[in-house]
């Protein structure tokens, strides 16, 4: 199955991550609103709901929080 291989590749790529990162005083860009992953949560939730009712796959980004009778 493809999934275990993909997970292995991701984990291998990320274990090289212990040397990645920035010093605390280098965070001014990372702290911006538009750099946050969950910065547009309402829009993402609305989109997730639309695609959940029109496609067979859903989620992955986080927990959608909600079910409906549409799929």
């Amino acid at each position, binding site marked *: 199955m493809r999934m275990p291989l993909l997970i292995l590749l991701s984990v291998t790529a990320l274990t090289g991550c212990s040397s990645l990162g920035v010093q605390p*005083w280098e*965070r001014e860009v990372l702290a911006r*609103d538009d750099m946050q992953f969950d910065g547009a949560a309402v829009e993402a939730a609305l989109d997730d709901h639309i695609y959940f009712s029109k496609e067979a796959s859903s989620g992955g980004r986080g927990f959608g929080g909600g079910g409906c009778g549409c799929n």
Partner: protein
Amino acid sequence: MDTPSRKIDLGSADGYWIGRFGAMANPCEVLIETTSAAEARDVCERVAACAWRIEDRFSRYRPDNVVHAINSSGGVPITVDEETAGLLDFAATLHRVSAGRFDITSGVLRRAWIFDGGVQVPSQAVIDEILPYVGWAKVIWERPVLTLLPGMQIDFGGIGKEYAVDQAARTVQALSSASTLINFGGDLAITRPRRTGHPWRVGIEATHGPPRVASRLIDLRDGALASSGDTYRFVLKDGRRYSHILDPRTGWPVEHAPRCVTVAAPTCTQAGTLATLAMLHGAAAGRFLEVEGARHWIQWS
């Protein structure tokens, strides 16, 4: 230490201008409530010049300033200028009112403690070797002559940034009637209240979680704000966290110090001093600030 390029980034916002530059190993910004780009540029350049001047004069990393001269004096008396004398007088006062907890000669303990989140805790023997070189009481300070014992070092790191903010603020107050917020890496001051009556909104960064904008927001209309904290500079061994705030009387970190203390006061120097003194009181940080009647916020974990 390499000096990063000394350039100022100026950008406009709605109703104010923002200048950004680096100084004293910190991101610095100046917010000026003006619509005039020329005024904004002038103010920013003055503030940056002030910051770089103080960095050049008092940074312990430079091989060509009064601090270097003092630290390599080897016991020889050094005559210092008015500004340095002022800082030394201030340090002497803080040493006295804090009963020895605040001490600009304590920097040599850095040789024993490496605060990088690692697990190196020095032995008492190592600390005992360094303690003879720590202690403002061992210094002969008769203005304008300073004599250290051979092997002692001074470091203005604990008061330099706040002093620079206040000096920059005084310069701007004389120069411009625009409300200006001067922020050197989280230690900041306002030159005068904003014309619109709105406060300057300042964020205090959270002590943990993924990188986030602010854990609390402060509306600052007048005065200054400074923080003392150990978010990243600590040692963790056997589940005990050793903060980077060292008690110079023992050479060991202050026990049960909060993670971050933020104080509001009329000047940045006062705010920073109170924040540092609070940290040095460890578990009694909150009580200390309440007794002082200072507006403060403490993050304990």
